[in-house]
C-alpha cells in the first residue's frame, strides 16, 4: 500500500507552495513557492510508488532477480521523479534568470510593478 503520511505531506507541500505563489508579492518568494510546490509533487510521486516494508528497487546481494518483484517498491515512479526533479530545476533556473533581468530593468522585485500589459 502507498504511504499515506508521505502522500499527505506531499499534498500539503503542494498546497503551501501554491498558496505562497498566490499571496507573496516578492518575485523570489513566488519562485520559492513554485519550488515548494514542485517538491510536494515529487514527494507525491514517490509515495505513490512506495510499498510498505519493501526495499529499494536495486538488484544486488540483498535482492535477487527471482524474488525482486515481491521485495522491492515500484521502480517506475522513482525513475520518473529523477527526471521531474531535473526539469523542475531547469524551470526554476529560467525563472530566476528572468527575475535577474527584470530587476535590472525595473529595479523592483514586486510582482505588482509588472502589470503594464493588461486587458
Amino acid at each position: 500500500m502507498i504511504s499515506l503520511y508521505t502522500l499527505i505531506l506531499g499534498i500539503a507541500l503542494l498546497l503551501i507552495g501554491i498558496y505562497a505563489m498566490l499571496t507573496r508579492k516578492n518575485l523570489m518568494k513566488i519562485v520559492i513557492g513554485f519550488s515548494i510546490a514542485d517538491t510536494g509533487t515529487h514527494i507525491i510521486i514517490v509515495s505513490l510508488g512506495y510499498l510498505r516494508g519493501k526495499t529499494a528497487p536495486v538488484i544486488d546481494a540483498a535482492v535477487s532477480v527471482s524474488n525482486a518483484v515481491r521485495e522491492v517498491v515500484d521502480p517506475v515512479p522513482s525513475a520518473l521523479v529523477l527526471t521531474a526533479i531535473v526539469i523542475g530545476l531547469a524551470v526554476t533556473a529560467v525563472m530566476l534568470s528572468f527575475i535577474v533581468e527584470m530587476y535590472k530593468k525595473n529595479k523592483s522585485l514586486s510582482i505588482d510593478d509588472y502589470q503594464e500589459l493588461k486587458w
Partner: protein
Amino acid sequence: MVSPIYILILSLSVGFLLSIFDRAGRKFSLTAFYSVLTFNVALMGDWLYRLAVLHVPTFVINTAGFNAPVSINLELGVAEALVLFLANLTGLMAAVYLFDKFREGKVSSLILYLLLVMGVNGLVMTQDIFNMFVFLEILSISTFALTTLKKNLKTLSAGFKYMIAGGVASTFFLLGVVFVYYFAGTLNLGFMTADQFSGIGLIALFLLSVSLFIELKPFPANGWALDVYQSVDSGIVSVIAVVNSAAIGFAFYKIMPLLPSSFLTAFGMAGIVTFFFSNMMGLKQENAKRLLGYSSIGQMGLLLASLVFTIGIEPAVRYLIIGGLFLNHLLSKAGLFWIAGIVKEEKIRNWGVLRNNKPLLVLFGLFIFALSGLPPFAGFWAKWEFVKVLVDSKMFFVLGTVLVGSLFELIFLFRWFTMAVKENADELEPMASPGFSRIFPVSFFGILAAVVSFGAMRCFYGSNWLQVLPVIAVLFITLIDSLPSKVKGFISLAAVAGYGYYLYPLLTGNIQLFFGVIFIAGSAVNLISTLNRKNQSKGFYGFLLMMIFSFGNLLIASTYLEFFLSWEFMTLSSFLLILRGQNAQRASLMYMIFSTAGAYLIMVGFSFAPALSSTAALILSIQDVNLPLISFIVLAIGFMIKSGSVGVHIWLPEAHAEAESDVSPFISAILLKAGVFGLLLLGIAYVSNAPSFDVFYWVGWIGVITAIAGAFMASFQEDAKKLLAYSSMSQVGYIVAALAMITHLGWVSALYLAFNHMMFKSALFIAVAGIYYRTRTRKMYEMGGLISRMPWTYMTVLMSIIAVSGVPPLSGFGAKWLIYTAFITKGWYLQAGVLFFASGVSFLYLYRLIHTIFLGQLKYEHQEIKEAPAWFIIPQYIFLAGIMAISMFPNLIIKPLNAIAMHYFDSSIQIDGLTVMSELGYWNGNLVMYVTMAVFAIPFIMLLLLKGKTQKVKQFNIVYAAERPESPQTTHVAHNMYAHLRKSLGSLSLPRVQEFWNSVAEWSHTLGAFFRRVYTGNGQTYLLHIILYIVVMYAVMGGQ
C-alpha cells in the same frame, strides 16, 4: 524511408553542436540550423505522402530495443504526419522570418529554437504520457527563454507570467501522469483503456486533461497568453500561437479517447465559451497583436470544441472540419502575426501605413478573409460542415454561440481591414520596406492558403470550373491590371457577354432565364457606365466580374453548398466594391456585418433542410423539398437582410450612398435582387410544401412596412444617392410584399416590379452618377436648373420617375395595376391600403429629386457645366428603351412572367391581344400610352403659347434684415424641402432602427470591455484564474 526519430536526434544533436559550429562563424551555424529545419519539413512531407497517398501503415518506433510498454514508443500516422508537416513548415517559415534576429543575436536562440522544434515533434509522436510531460517541458522551457528574443520590460514580465502559469500547469500535468500510472499500471497510451479509470481514478484523468487544457489557454485562465502575444517578437509569437498550440492540442487529442463523455462535453463547452468571450473581448481591442492574440485563443477554443463535438461522425467529414479549422488558423494567424511584425504600428487605427505596400495589403486582406471563414479558404468549408453537424446533433446552444462569436470575430477583423484600407495615415511615418526574409514567409503562406483553398474546391467540385470562375476572374484581372481602365472595361464587358452566352443553355427553367436577364444583361448594361473611369481603377474590374459571375452562379447552383458559396462570393466582392468609395469605411463594414449575419442564417437554414435528391439547379429542385418551419424562418430573415427589409436595412442607405457612383447601380438594381431571388426560392418551396405556420404572411407585412418606411425616409434626404437608396428599399419592399402573397398574380407583379426596378433604378443611379461627375456634389439643394445644361440626363430622370411612380403611361402603372389587383384578390386589403399610402409618399421624394436637381434656377457655379459623358448616357438610354418597350407592349414581359408563375399556380389572368384581363378588370398598356400622350400634348402646347409671359427673377434676390445668409442655398425651398411634413410626420422617419443597432453595438463593446477586466495584468491574478478554473471544471465534471 528515413525514420522520423531522426528529427529528434538531429534537432537535439545539431542543437548542442551549434555553439561549436558558431565558433567557425555564424554562417556555419545558420546553415546547420536551417538545414535541420528544412530536413524536418522534407521528412515529414515524405511521410505524409507515404501515409496519406500510398497508404503505408502507421509507423511505430520502439526505442531502446524493447517493445512498448517496456520502452517508450513513438507513432507516426496520417494525423501526426499532417500536424507535424504543417508545424515544421510553420517553424521553418517563422525561422526564415526571424533570419535577421538569428543572424545578429546570440547563438543560444538558435539552440533554443531547435529544442522547441524537437519538443513539438516529440510531443506529437510519443505514445508515453511521461514522455509527453518531458517533451512538453522541453517545449515550454525553450519557449519561455525565446520570449526574450527581444529583451525589454514587457517581454520579460510577459514571459515571467507565462512561466508561472506554464509551471503550475505542468506540475498538475505531472501529477496527472503519476496518478494515471497508479490506476492504469502503465504509462503507455496504447495500453490504457477508459474502463481502467472509474471513481477516484477519474481524478487522474481530470488532472491530466485539465492541465493540458490550461496550456491551450481557455477563457478566463489565459491572461498570461494574451500578454505574451502582445509583447513578444512576432516571429516567436507565430510559433507559440500556431506550432505550440498545434502540438499541445494534438496531445490533448491523443488522450481524448480515455476521457468520459462528461469530461469531453465540459471541455467542448469550455472551448465554445473561450471562442465566444475571446471574440467579444476582441471587439474592444486596439492593439494589433493583442487583437490577434484574442483571435488565436478564440480559434483554439473553436478547434477544441470541434474536436469534441464531431466525435462519432463520419471520419472524412470530421477530418475536413478539424483539418480545415486547423489549417485556416495556422496559415492565416501565422501570416497575420508576421505582417504585424512588419508593420510595427501597434494601434490598428494606424495600419493605414500598410497601403504603402500594396502586395502586403493584399496578403493582409487574404488572411483576414480566410480567418473570417469566407470562401474559398479552408475555414469556409469547415464552418459549413461544422454547422451541419451541430444542427444534425441538435446542439443549438453551441451553434448559436459559435455563430455569434464568429460574427464578433468578423467585426473586429473587418474593422481592422477597413482601417488599413481607408484610415488616414498621412501623418504617420511611412512603413519601411521589409527585407526578403520577412516578406517571403508571408507570401509563401498566402500562396499556400490560396492553393489549399483551390484544392478544397477541387475536392468539392471536381471539374466544375464555373464555381471557381469568380476567383479566376479576380486572378485574371490582377494579371492585366496594368492596362488602362478602359481596356479592362471592354475586356470585362466581353467576359460578361461570354459568360452569359455560356450560361444561357444551362438556364433550363424560365425563372432562371428571367433572373439571368436581370443579373447578367442588367450588369452588362450597367458595366458600360464604368467605361468612363479615367484612372487605372486597380482591382475594380476583378471584383466587379467576381460579383457578376457569382450572381450568375446563384442561378445554376445545384446544391445548398454551391448556392451558399456563390452567395458568399457575392457578399465578399460587393463588400470590396463598396469599400472603394471615398468615405465608405463605415458603410462597407456595416454592409459586411449585416450580410454575414444574413449569411449565417442562410447557412443554418440550409443545414436544417433535407438532402436534395435531384441534380437540377436548386431553384428548380427546391419545389420537391419539404423544408422544415425553422428553415423557412431563418432563411426568410437571411434573405430579407440582403434585400434591405425594415429593421435590418440600416446598411442599405450607407452602402448605396458611399459606394463609388458607378458601383451604386449594381448594388441597388442588381444586388438587392439576389435577396429577392432567395425569397423566391423559399416561396417555391412554400408553394409545394407549406409549413403549419404561415411565414409568408409576416414576410408580406415586413415588405409592406419596408415600402412605406423607405418612402418616408427617402422624402427627407438631401443627398440624391441616399434618396435613391431609400427609394430602392421601398421598392424592394413592394416586391417582397407581392412575392409573399404566394399567388399567381402576386408573383407576376413581384417579378414585373423586380424587372422594372432593375431598369429604372439603374437609369436613375447612372443619371445621378453623371450629375455627380459634373457637379461633384450629391446634395440636391446645391444643384438646380440643370435641365438646361444636362437635358439628356433630365429626360432619363423624368422618364424613370414616371416609371417609378406608377402613373400612366409607363411601366410602373402596369406594376401598380397588377399589384393592387393581386392584393385585392388575395384579400390583403389593409396591406394594399398601406402600400397605396406609400405610393403617395413616393411622389414626394420623386418630385423632390427632379425638382431640386433640374428645375428652378441654375446655380452660378454650374453655369458652364456640360452634359454627362456619353458612357453614362448610353446605358441610361438602353434602360429607357427597355422601359418604353415594356410600357408600349406589356406582353413582352407579362407573357413570360405569366408562364413562370403558371409553373407554380393556376393562371389568374388572360391575355387577349394587347389587353391583360384579371377577374377585377383589364389593362391595355398600349392604349393607355396613346391616351396619356394626348393628355400630355394639350397642356404642353398651352405652356408653349404662354411662355412669353413669364418674368425672370434673379437668384436669391432676397433680403434678410440687411444680412446676406452665408449659405444662400439653404434658404431655398430645395433645402429641407418637406419641412412642414417633417414636422407632422417626421417622427415616423426617425432613425430608430439605427439607434437600436447602435445600442446593440455599444452593448457588445461594453460587455467586451467589462469581461476583459479580468485580465488585470497581474501574474498572481492569472495564476488564481488557473487554480479557480481547475476547481470549477472539477465541479462541473464531478457534477455530471
